[in-house]
């Protein structure tokens, strides 16, 4: 009996752990709240680590909910990646959360959002996919509004929920058209019935628009900058890494398995969108003064580069995208960690306010610089390998090479705005006019994790080989 229960529940190990966390948090809050904050922070981080490790458990029996949910090793790994990102973000916000009055709500919402993303990743049915997507988006809207006394936060949350709702509606229309085409919501059934006719193209485009909104691809990116600027810094980090990564993982699955027969169409669509995304993202990032808006546009450009990989074959593309997102996690969180620390300690948000940081704190400056160089794609950081493999995967069809060259040349512009930060940091004419405060331990730990991840993940190829073995099994 117990064996049967365990056997059926084992595919859900990561989701069940999240549910357990959410319930314990709710009950702790009801029964006494304030005095347990310290302990709560500890065990939530531990829980996230356990979820990360659980992703490496060998996957045996793997489908449930009458085939709406399916777990592959690749899915398990992707969930680990998302949980790991949440863990690092939680470490970076440790001291802020200790003082904050809504810590329990924060974690409940974060874990719920993660739960939604996990369900979305494992879905093989459009209904389950939509449930996961909504479950991941709605807590984020609440999280964006978390600094209740700032008007900017409310404005950001309003923009986010309005745009998200609109995109969801379009997505739902697309899904209903797909149902009309195939008579079923199951991925495999839809894939079998999908042929190249105008109706399926309309359905596909509506669906794609709804999904691409969440990754801020260019015509649908207008919410990104304001939401990133208005949200508290830990939520911005969560949005930029975890939310984007989850949708990109799902997009891999969708485009290469469900919409496989429309490949000739979505190759062209992706090509146009990625060029526009990279160019616009770069051009806007050049003019930003606020560090959070700057990171918003930088992440838009990074997504543009990720889309290059989709032009290749399924194995190379998936491996390159998953590999790059792991590296993007480390690089982005290194930079966000520094921004978190500086904002929570000194309340500085503009890039120009970082002047003279190098002389004040070399460790912090190097973490920031290594993170930025990894985002820019400079060896020996892992970002170089990530970008190289993305573009390599996309160049498989030699006819795309001229367009991809345009994308690659945009690397110059992106390097320029990352270097602008370096120039500001090394500026030794101006004093960084704040007293030096020791960096708290949890943030230091997150920095070390990120830097080690950046320096090792590239040159050491074992992560790439591991991801490739997972992809080969999944596609």
């Amino acid at each position: 009996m117990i064996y049967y229960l365990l056997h059926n529940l084992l595919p859900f190990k990561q989701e069940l752990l999240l549910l357990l966390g959410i319930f314990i948090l709710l009950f702790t809050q009801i029964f006494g709240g304030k005095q347990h904050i310290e302990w709560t922070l500890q065990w939530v981080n531990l829980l996230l680590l356990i979820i990360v490790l659980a992703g490496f458990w060998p996957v045996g029996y793997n489908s449930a909910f009458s085939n709406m949910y399916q777990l592959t090793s690749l899915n398990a790994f992707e969930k680990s990646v998302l949980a790991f990102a949440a863990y690092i973000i939680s470490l970076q916000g440790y001291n802020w959360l200790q003082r904050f009055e809504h810590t329990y709500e924060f974690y409940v919402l974060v874990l719920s959002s993660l739960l939604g993303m996990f369900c979305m990743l494992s879905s093989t049915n459009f209904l389950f996919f939509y449930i996961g997507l909504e479950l991941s988006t709605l807590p984020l809207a609440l999280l964006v509004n978390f600094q209740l006394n700032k008007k900017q936060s409310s404005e950001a949350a309003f923009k986010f929920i309005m745009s998200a709702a609109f995109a969801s509606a379009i997505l739902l229309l697309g899904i209903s058209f797909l149902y009309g085409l195939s008579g079923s919501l199951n991925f495999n059934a839809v894939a079998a019935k999908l042929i190249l006719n105008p109706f399926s193209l309309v359905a596909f485009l509506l669906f794609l628009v709804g999904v691409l909104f969440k990754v801020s691809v260019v015509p649908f990116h207008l919410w990104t900058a304001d939401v990133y600027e208005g949200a508290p810094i830990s939520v911005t980090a969560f949005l930029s890494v975890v939310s984007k990564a989850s949708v990109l993982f799902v997009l891999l699955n969708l485009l290469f398995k469900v919409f496989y027969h429309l490949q000739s169409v979505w190759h062209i669509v992706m090509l146009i969108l990625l060029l526009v995304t990279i160019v616009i993202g770069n051009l806007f990032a050049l003019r930003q003064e606020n560090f959070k808006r700057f990171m918003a546009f930088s992440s838009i450009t990074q997504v543009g580069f990720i889309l290059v990989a989709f032009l290749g074959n399924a194995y190379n593309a998936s491996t390159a995208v998953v590999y790059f997102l792991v590296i993007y996690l480390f690089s982005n969180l290194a930079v966000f960690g520094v921004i978190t620390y500086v904002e929570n300690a000194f309340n500085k948000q503009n890039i120009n306010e970082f002047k003279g940081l190098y002389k004040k704190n070399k460790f912090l400056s190097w973490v920031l610089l290594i993170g930025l160089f990894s985002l820019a794609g400079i060896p020996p950081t892992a970002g170089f390998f990530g970008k190289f493999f993305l573009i390599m995967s996309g160049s498989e069809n030699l006819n795309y090479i001229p367009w991809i060259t345009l994308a690659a040349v945009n690397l110059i512009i992106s390097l320029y705005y990352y270097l602008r930060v370096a120039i500001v940091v090394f500026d030794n004419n101006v004093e960084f006019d704040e007293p030096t405060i020791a960096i708290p331990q949890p943030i230091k730990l997150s920095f070390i994790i990120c830097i080690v991840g950046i320096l090792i993940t590239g040159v050491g190829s074992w992560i790439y080989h591991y991801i490739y073995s997972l992809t080969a099994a999944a596609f």
Partner: protein
Amino acid sequence: MIVHFLIIVPILTILIMLFVQKQQVIRAVALTGAIIQLLIVINVLWQYVLNSDMTTGNVMLQTNVMWFAPLNIHYSVGVDGISIVMLFLTALVVIAAILVSWKEEYLTKEFFVLLTLLALGAYGFFISFDLFLMFFFLELAVIPKFLLILNWGSGNKTYSATKLVLMLIGASAILFMGILGIYYASSNGSPSFNMLTLKDSGMAYHWQLIFFPFLFIGFGVFTALFPFHTWVPDGHSAAPTAGSMFLAGISMKLGGYGLIRLVTMLMPAAAQFYSPYIVLLAVIGILYGAFATMVQKDLKYMNAYSSVSHCGFVVLGIGMLNPVAITGAVLQMISHGLMTALFFAAIGMIYSRTHTRIIKEMGGLLTYLPFIGGLFILAGLASLGLPGLSGFVAEVTVLVGSWQLPFLPYRIATIIAAASIVVTAVYILRAAGTILMGNTKANHFDTPIDARWYEKWAGVLLGIGILIVGVLPFLILKIISPTIHYWQS
């Protein structure tokens, strides 16, 4: 096995330097690391000379380790005749650069770590036989240049550093697309980055024609080819002395080495087709560089533009596509590397004493600074091609090789290139005469000290190199000639 130490030793040096605090120990560690590198290079050279079949000039000491199996990327290293002399050049210039910056006070640790990173990039580039690995090391060296110019440079630092990095990364991006083109278009079945198998299997001709410009422009920017040379004057002049020595001495040779590999190993058929354009751009570069140098008022800008001109000779030799001309190109790379490093070292020493780089503001320095003045004159004479020094040997070989093809435009190009030597003589002699001879305009320094021991050693090291290449070039030719004949057959 010993070839790997070329990469391991700089990494170890950097790691040790990261944990040391005292300034004197840091620079001692850096110098020790560089000297160990030189000894390793001499060892590799010795093994190469003893073991290689000098008549074929094959690749020696090869190692091939799988790096990213699904993408067929290997850690594939080895040396052949051309690599080994470039490695030797790198070792010498790095030691001289470290010696010249012995008294660097500001952020000493970061300075020497960045310099060693640059050296690592150069060493790795010269020993790699896998295009991905080569590209990795090429880009590795770019950001240290940016940081060196930004923090320790002079003049318009921020602008020059940004311009240099953006142009070099732009070149890398174009190079990157060319490398991907080779990867996917190599007509072997499974795509590969390995340069040696590409030599055997070859690429389809129409793909070669399409991708040759990518690689040519990519490497050409690094070697200051004519329309893309604009990063050189600002970059070299704003850089600190060690940075300028490395940039002009080694970094520009990365492009030349890449062009030689491109033309002889990767795309020989397309090289035949594009040869007129290569020669045209080279000649324009030589002439334009020479005339632009004549109007410079700043010593460093003068040397930077003269680097553009001399590297034009390298590209001219490569463009002619016959073994003698390519041998001349390699000789010119070595000669120019040593000579321009010495020139920048001398300029740096003068600048640190007079605090000005404008030629007109200096005069009669030979009375106060005889040793440094001597180094300046040695470098200048090598630059204008005085027989007995390396510049003459290199330029003569290039010109003889260029003359071999009985094709009138090429012969006219050769004549024009030879005529530019006159222009070189003009600006060198004028600069040397103005700042070294004549009345002293010594109103802005009190008691200038002549070269200290570290500056003397730096100058002597490079000077001996120039003399050996100039008087005993057969030593080098015995190493590089068989290799070039093998690849260019």
